[in-house]
């Protein structure tokens, strides 16, 4: 059968049956219709996006100013946009799962198969393609500004990191259209994900999306670490760095050292599946326990990677909106470092129940509880920061309030789980699910949302609408509480995680409460979209071009909003910890320098996009066994990479007079504007210039 062989050679194991639309037509159950609807949404979303860009006539701009850009600020924004697109899917999946379980007494409307695909994609997307890109995007935007640098150390590598993250995200999205995603959870334990038990493309999708994105993250980690170590403005010693930068440094170290175990685990699993290796198989000496071990060697540091930068955001916003210096700067730094290092010593607490001896469990149990000490110190330091402050209840502070209350509860349940004897009971139950949403949502998500509100005016030159922001924050806080507190009780009642349905009628009332909470969360999401829309519409009256809407304390507020391509006309000379606050108090701020100099900036390049597209094709080829395409895509990546090393001129110069003109125009604006006091902060009078209403004179009491 020549044609058969040819299609096989051309298309591998891809076939018409891989399209989810067909089963939905043949057998229109609710479950299939939901799947087909999701696929349709992806297609329509893509078409809509393309149409919108065409309508704007923005293809050229998109390519020239964004996709090929090496500017850390644009790359940061692209990371965030990517994460928001993925978030739409992750949230909807969360909501669908809650709906399923609300009506899951003896069934529900989804097949078990479909439900397991949902929690697998939801977990994978939320961790790898929502939380991580949001954090990396935020750090990308803010860190060079905070340390007074012009860009990251390796701008092209930065672009490639983004490309690889986008590749992973694209693969997860494509899995809705072609074939099916894994059903093995975000942890993908073999042998369930091994070839014998799951020969289809699902686990392969998981492997390649996670492995490729993980590679990108490792590179981001290297980039952040080197940038923070080597690109700081003169005078910015390590112990003068803003806390957010410190937390990104610690997160970067985790990226560099915690991603390798993931790479090893996924590639070993791939070797088992593709090349008949026996790392984790049932037979011939494979040892699945090593997979579990390797995965959590990555997995535990990973979740702290997510939360540590969120701690950084709270450190910045709480100090700013309390109008105070941060209490216990050194303590906070040491606590962050302690958390980062300890995060590498506790991974076994995710499998206390595997059968190792009591002594092993004890060592890792105690190590896990030790993390409560530095975390507690952080909480207390922030409390001491608001103590004797002048607190403005802006949106970030509402999130901070929610964080104080809810995160501490999540931490408490974490401490419970760190006790092996308790973990024996609640491991793998909804109690665990409640724990980690209880630390991730009040910690990571609230941190990111408050960072979003705090830094948005820096990136776009106008503030977000305050009223809608407050409503969103409250909906989040209550929605979260209603959704996840019932799950603690369900966990105590022994309901396993990842259950599509249950038979105990006692679960139902709690499930309905959780369903109500999920509805609130979805309306929070709606409210945040409306907030953005309203803010864009009213951007004239919300504009803060002068750059300092919140009476900020750190360097990123010392430049215009949005900042120029080169960030600072002249690199700042740092003299104090909260340098910009110090500068404002001592009248050093907004000074015209003696002289302007030429600035060298990196050129645009299409390398990142080439790598992104080819590695997406590579991933698809591997998932569907299309070997010629895999070889071709690898070849393109290698050639593009080597060709790039033959490009000698990679920078361009911005002449001093251009810079001088731009800077003088901004300074003129500053001198013409009237500074505002903090009670006018949320009104249209705020153009981004703060009056010295809250003086930094020691012990002042007005």
């Amino acid at each position, binding site marked *: 059968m020549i044609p058969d062989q040819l299609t096989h050679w051309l298309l591998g194991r891809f076939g018409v049956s891989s399209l989810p639309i067909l089963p939905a037509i043949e057998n229109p159950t609710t479950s299939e219709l939901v799947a087909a609807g999701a696929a349709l949404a992806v297609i329509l979303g893509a078409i809509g996006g393309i149409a919108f860009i065409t309508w704007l006539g923005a293809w050229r701009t998109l390519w020239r100013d964004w996709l090929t850009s090496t500017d850390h600020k644009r790359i940061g924004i692209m990371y965030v946009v990517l994460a928001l697109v993925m978030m739409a899917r992750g949230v909807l999946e969360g909501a669908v799962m809650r709906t399923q379980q609300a009506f899951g007494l003896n069934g529900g409307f989804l097949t078990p198969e479909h439900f*397991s695909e949902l929690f697998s994609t939801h977990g994978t997307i939320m961790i790898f393609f929502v939380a991580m890109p949001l954090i990396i995007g935020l750090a990308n935007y803010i860190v060079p500004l905070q340390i007074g640098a012009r860009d990251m150390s390796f701008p092209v590598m930065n672009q490639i990191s983004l490309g690889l993250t986008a590749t992973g995200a694209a693969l997860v999205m494509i899995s809705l259209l072609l074939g099916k995603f894994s059903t093995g959870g975000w942890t993908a334990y073999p042998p369930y994900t091994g070839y014998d*038990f799951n020969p289809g493309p699902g686990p392969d999708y998981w492997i390649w999306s996670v492995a490729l994105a993980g590679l990108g993250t490792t590179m981001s980690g290297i980039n952040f670490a080197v940038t923070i170590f080597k690109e700081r403005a003169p005078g910015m010693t390590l112990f003068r760095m803003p806390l957010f930068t410190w937390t990104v440094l610690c997160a970067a170290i985790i990226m560099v050292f915690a991603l390798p175990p993931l790479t090893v685990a996924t590639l070993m699993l791939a070797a088992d599946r593709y090349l008949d290796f026996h790392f984790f198989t049932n037979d011939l000496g494979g040892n699945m326990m090593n997979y579990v071990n390797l995965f959590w060697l990555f997995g535990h540091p990973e979740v702290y990677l997510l939360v540590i930068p969120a701690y950084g955001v709270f450190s910045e916003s709480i100090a700013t909106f309390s109008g105070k210096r941060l209490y216990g700067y050194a303590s906070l730094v040491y606590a962050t470092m302690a958390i980062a290092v300890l995060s590498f010593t506790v991974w076994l607490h995710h499998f206390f129940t595997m*059968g190792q001896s009591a002594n092993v469990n004890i060592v890792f149990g105690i190590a896990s509880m030790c993390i409560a000490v530095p975390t507690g110190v952080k909480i207390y330091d922030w409390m001491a920061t608001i103590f004797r*402050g002048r607190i403005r209840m802006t949106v970030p502070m509402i999130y901070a309030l929610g964080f104080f209350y809810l995160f501490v509860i999540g931490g*408490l349940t974490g401490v419970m789980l760190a006790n092996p004897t308790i973990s024996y*009971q609640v491991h*793998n139950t909804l109690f665990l699910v409640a724990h980690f949403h209880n630390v991730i949502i009040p910690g990571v998500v609230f941190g990111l949302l408050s960072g979003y509100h705090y830094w948005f005016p820096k990136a776009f030159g106008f503030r977000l609408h305050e009223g809608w922001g407050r409503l969103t924050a409250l909906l989040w806080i209550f929605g979260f509480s209603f959704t996840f507190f019932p799950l603690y009780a369900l966990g105590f009642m022994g309901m396993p995680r990842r259950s599509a349905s249950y038979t105990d009628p006692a679960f139902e009332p709690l499930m309905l409460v959780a369903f109500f909470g999920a509805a609130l969360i979805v309306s929070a999401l709606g409210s945040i979209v409306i907030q953005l829309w309203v803010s864009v519409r009213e951007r004239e009256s919300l504009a803060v071009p002068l750059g300092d809407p919140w009476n900020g304390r750190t360097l990123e507020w010392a430049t215009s909003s949005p900042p120029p391509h080169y960030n600072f006309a002249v690199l700042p000379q740092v003299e104090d910890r909260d340098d910009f606050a110090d500068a404002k108090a001592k009248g050093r701020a907004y000074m015209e320098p003696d002289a302007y100099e030429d600035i060298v900036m990196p050129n645009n390049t299409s390398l990142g996009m080439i790598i992104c597209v080819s590695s997406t094709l590579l991933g698809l080829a591997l998932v569907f066994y299309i070997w010629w395409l895999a070889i071709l895509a690898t070849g393109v990546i290698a050639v593009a990479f080597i060709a790039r090393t033959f490009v000698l001129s990679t920078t361009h110069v911005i002449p001093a007079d251009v810079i001088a003109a731009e800077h003088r125009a901004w300074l003129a604006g500053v001198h013409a504007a009237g500074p505002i006091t903090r009670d006018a902060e949320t009104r249209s009078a705020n153009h981004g210039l703060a009056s010295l209403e*809250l003086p930094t004179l020691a012990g*002042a009491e007005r």
Partner: protein
Amino acid sequence: MKAIMSRLSFPTRHRLVFCSLSFLLLSACSEQRNSFLDPAGPIAAAQRAHLIEVFAWTMIAILPVFILVPLMFWRYRYRNRKARYTPDWAFSGWLDLLMWGVPFVIVGVLSTQLWKSTHALDPYKPIASTEAPVNVQVVGLDWKWLFIYPDLGIATVNELAFPVGASVAMDVTTDTVMQSIMIPALAGQIYAMPGMRTKLHVLADETGSFDGENTQFSGAGFTEQKFEAISMTSQDFTAWVAKVKANGIPLDATSYGRLAAASTGAQVHETLGSPQMPEGVLYFNAVEPALFANVLGRYTQGTAIPSTLQPGAVGYVPPAAAGANQ
């Protein structure tokens, strides 16, 4: 609900704490006992006690947050010009000592308790009991549990009976993907893995029927992989053994092969069971003595297991049933 409240027999200083935890469970009024907060054996009771202890100790560090945060947000609000304002105050040695010291001490206390309880409740450790211990070999299958009583020559699917007050010593493995066995009202869980043997000990100090389950996701039928653990008087247990012997069918390579194929307890009850066996449950009388050892040893013999011979795998073919009735 009564069941839970009537069990409030522990010291009163814990009562308050426990109530605040169990208010969450107010709506939990199922007949079946399925929570370690309503324990029926010493291990689960100790686990609950430990949970309460951890909760109580952490409150020392956590209550100040709950109380002080709202007070401070109110007192130091922007408009309150009467409150003291110290914008440059950023360090106090004593405060720092307290901040590091208190959590440190608490974690120290909790660590010693963790140490003791982890050793005491090690699932591999036999539980002291007056009754003679019962040995059970547990095989996790897709999606049911097989319990072999090697000393009694019987086996069951999805029903684990034992005399009240006897320590049940389980050897646990699976013949498919990884699973995890737990009877919440009696003790915690342990993983079951192919080719490996883990151990779990449970003991019930009252009669009753308790939910047991697999908590480790293992495929489409995962939610159906439940069983009943029944603690009964010794007389009842003897009678139960006799009933299983009388109503059971032989457990040999063929019937085992059909058990091992991916199906729920209810489904195998349809094909192999008889009306004398409870719903979703199977009884076996003549059990091949080396069955458990074979299940375990198959994976470590150094030969490849093709997917046709791997229960749970796509493409598994149960051994041909010579003279089977289907």
